[in-house]
């Protein structure tokens, strides 16, 4: 057991580090200040272009498709080194590289691969995801947005419906979209997957006002949107398999995190308790902080075990969901504690107290971490079923044609 790189990994890390040292600083975001989202997306594109020019995009993507064909372990090393800089990375680029590309590479035809893959790696195409709907979240296959063939013999599809939680849909070029093309078969079997140009007439995105005050998610309305059949990915009815490819990417990608505990410890150690000591003298505070620290370390070393599995060519499967499940709840708890320790000053901080502002934001944001990318309850089911071998859920809708379902 050791934490050292193998000679090959060390050489790769040195190469990555040297390249990043030369190129990353110019792309770093200013500390503390939030940029307008258009500028953040533009900067994200610019960083993608720099990565492409330097040969650092599509690290685990097959060489034949324009990637570098490296191992998962090397991708992790690059992400670690890249993570030392405050770079414009986010859904506006990662949905393309982490979701759209894997599904196009696996289910798309040669013409589609040629059209989309290089352009995405190069930063010329950015993507959003039109999956969830108001009544289809964890139960994604219950989605209602439908596509029918145009009656003009063109083979085009006409799409109508509503999607939600489409991050950055207002600023991205293309979308991956899953819709119902056959309501007469059970729900998983009647779905088809498309890519669609977000400038197509009939697509309207509206920002969703979130509880954090930000609006990075959208609802997207599709009204008689015409999509050529050439933009269908995979066969009709193969949409669910495509979604699984996308969601696997999402699960393995989750888990980059900041802990929030270190600053909390420093805050407690520096804040008087009114009895001549600091807040860190309070046994209850110590206990809660220690528990959070122990959990956080456990997550970190569990990640190290998963990384080791990946580098040996093993697939962690549902084990990967354990990290996200543990992290999201602890993050909520830690930030809740951070607010509590501040007392009323956590609710109404003095002007200029940006640290408390961040804690407030993170406490709000932690709620979505427990929902997005696999809700806690979905992950618990997966762990119980795939890790512990317990029975699957009773599914009332499994063999029922979609159009016969209630609701």
């Amino acid at each position, binding site marked *: *057991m*050791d*934490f*050292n*790189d*193998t000679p090959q*990994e060390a050489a790769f890390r040195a190469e990555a580090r040297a390249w990043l040292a030369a190129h990353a600083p110019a792309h770093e975001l200013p500390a503390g200040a939030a940029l307008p989202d258009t500028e953040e997306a533009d900067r994200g594109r610019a960083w993608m272009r720099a990565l492409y020019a330097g040969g650092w995009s599509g690290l685990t993507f097959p060489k034949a498709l324009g990637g570098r064909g490296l191992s998962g*372990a090397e991708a992790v090393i690059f992400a670690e080194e890249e993570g030392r800089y405050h770079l414009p990375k986010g859904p506006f680029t990662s949905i393309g590289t982490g979701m759209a590309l894997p599904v196009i590479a696996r289910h798309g035809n040669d013409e589609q691969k040629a059209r989309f893959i290089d352009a995405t790696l190069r930063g010329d195409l950015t993507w959003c995801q039109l999956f969830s709907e108001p009544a289809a979240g964890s139960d994604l296959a219950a989605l209602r947005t439908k596509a029918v063939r145009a009656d003009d013999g063109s083979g085009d599809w006409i799409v109508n419906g509503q999607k939600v939680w489409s991050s950055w849909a207002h600023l991205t070029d293309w979308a991956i979209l899953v819709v119902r093309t056959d309501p007469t078969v059970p729900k998983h079997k009647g779905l088809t997957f498309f890519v669609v140009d977000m400038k197509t007439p009939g697509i309207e995105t509206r920002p969703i006002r979130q509880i954090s005050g930000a609006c990075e998610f959208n609802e997207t309305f599709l009204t008689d949107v015409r999509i050529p059949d050439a933009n269908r990915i995979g066969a009709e009815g193969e949409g669910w398999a495509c979604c699984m490819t996308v969601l696997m990417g999402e699960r393995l990608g989750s888990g980059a995190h900041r802990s929030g505990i*270190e600053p909390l*410890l*420093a805050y*407690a*150690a520096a804040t008087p308790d009114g009895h001549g*000591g*600091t807040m*860190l*003298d309070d*046994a209850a505070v*110590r*206990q809660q*902080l*220690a*528990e959070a*620290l*122990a*959990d956080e*370390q*456990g*997550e*970190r*070393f*569990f990640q*190290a*075990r998963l*990384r*080791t*599995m990946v*580098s*040996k060519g093993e697939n962690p499967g549902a*084990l990967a969901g*354990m990290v996200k*499940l*543990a992290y999201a709840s602890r993050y909520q708890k830690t930030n809740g504690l951070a607010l509590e320790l501040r007392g009323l000053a956590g609710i109404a901080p003095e002007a200029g107290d940006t640290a408390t502002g961040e804690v407030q934001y993170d406490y709000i944001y932690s709620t979505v971490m427990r929902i997005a990318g696999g809700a806690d*309850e979905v*992950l*618990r*089911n997966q*762990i*119980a*079923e795939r*890790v*512990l*071998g*317990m*029975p*699957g*859920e*009773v599914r009332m809708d499994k063999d029922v044609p979609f159009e016969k379902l209630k609701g």
Partner: protein
Amino acid sequence: MNFDLSDEQKMLGEQARALLADLTPFDRLRALIDSDSEWDEPLWHALAEMGFLGVTIPEEHGGLGLGALDLGVIMEALGGANAAVPFMSSIVLGAEAIRLAGSEMQKAAWLPKLASGDAIATFAHAAGPGPAFAGGAALEGGRLSGSKSPVADAGIAHVAVVLVEGSGLALVDLDQTGVTRTRLGSFDQLRPHYRLDFDGAAAEVMPGGKAAIERLIDQGAVQAAFEAVGAAEACLHMARDYAMERQIFGRSLAGYQAIKHKLADIAVMTELARSNAYYGGWAAESAPDELPDAAAAARLSAIKAFEMAARENLQVHGGIGYTFEANCHFYYRRERLLAVHLGGRGYWADRLLKAQPGSQAKAA
């Protein structure tokens, strides 16, 4: 990076599990309790024969000279089987104390016998209610007076490492007139505890005692974490297996989310605790500076995982879990012991916070 056990370590763990599955089924534990036994003596000798007792004892003293992770996989197996042997007392704490703090003569006198299983050691660290690590006994001019209590496995031990007033360590042969052993009722029926009274008993200073005590306890905490992880996983699997075979309201009990989600949470806690235990074992072997942090995190997360696993395992069994014939109670009792021995949550929370740079944390 290779954050995994070596193939040899995995094999060692498998050997230990296989031996324990063979020699200490649950009916064996029930028989030991019914006969008011102090320990499973045949199992102890079988462990000795396999070389498990000497895993971390140096080769020149009859051991294998391996590391904390090798010991850890054995502790994990012992925890899983809820084995009634003084492994923690004699090997993890007693032998290790002598290795770390003993004189050359003390090592030569005791380590070979501890490795072979012919002698048993224990570590007397508590002195009645209060902190886990206290004086209670004083060493003066080679004579020890005072009391230590509770002391695990002191009925069968030949020698005790005693934490004395002033935080030093003394080595005491328990087979002498100045030592009185009084058996206490033990909540964990498979790990007896004693009160030791010393009345001018002959005792030797362990020269490296004061310097080694923290390291000894930290290393012990890592091993206790491995033991608890093994036990937590055993509870998890026991609960899962029972739920799988139990039919209720026309279907498998294991199909209900109230059960699935609970066990999924235990699985997560157990994996986090295991990951921290690996880190603790690695730090003990390769990064002593990180050991206090690693040991404390391992100990805290293992206590948390085993606590939930032991309680919910019994709960999943329902009424049958409350019977002596079911096997939940062995772990339910052992869990409380592991939660407090070698210091409980408060002690390890302090140690963890103190180990954080920049926290300027003070011990409570």
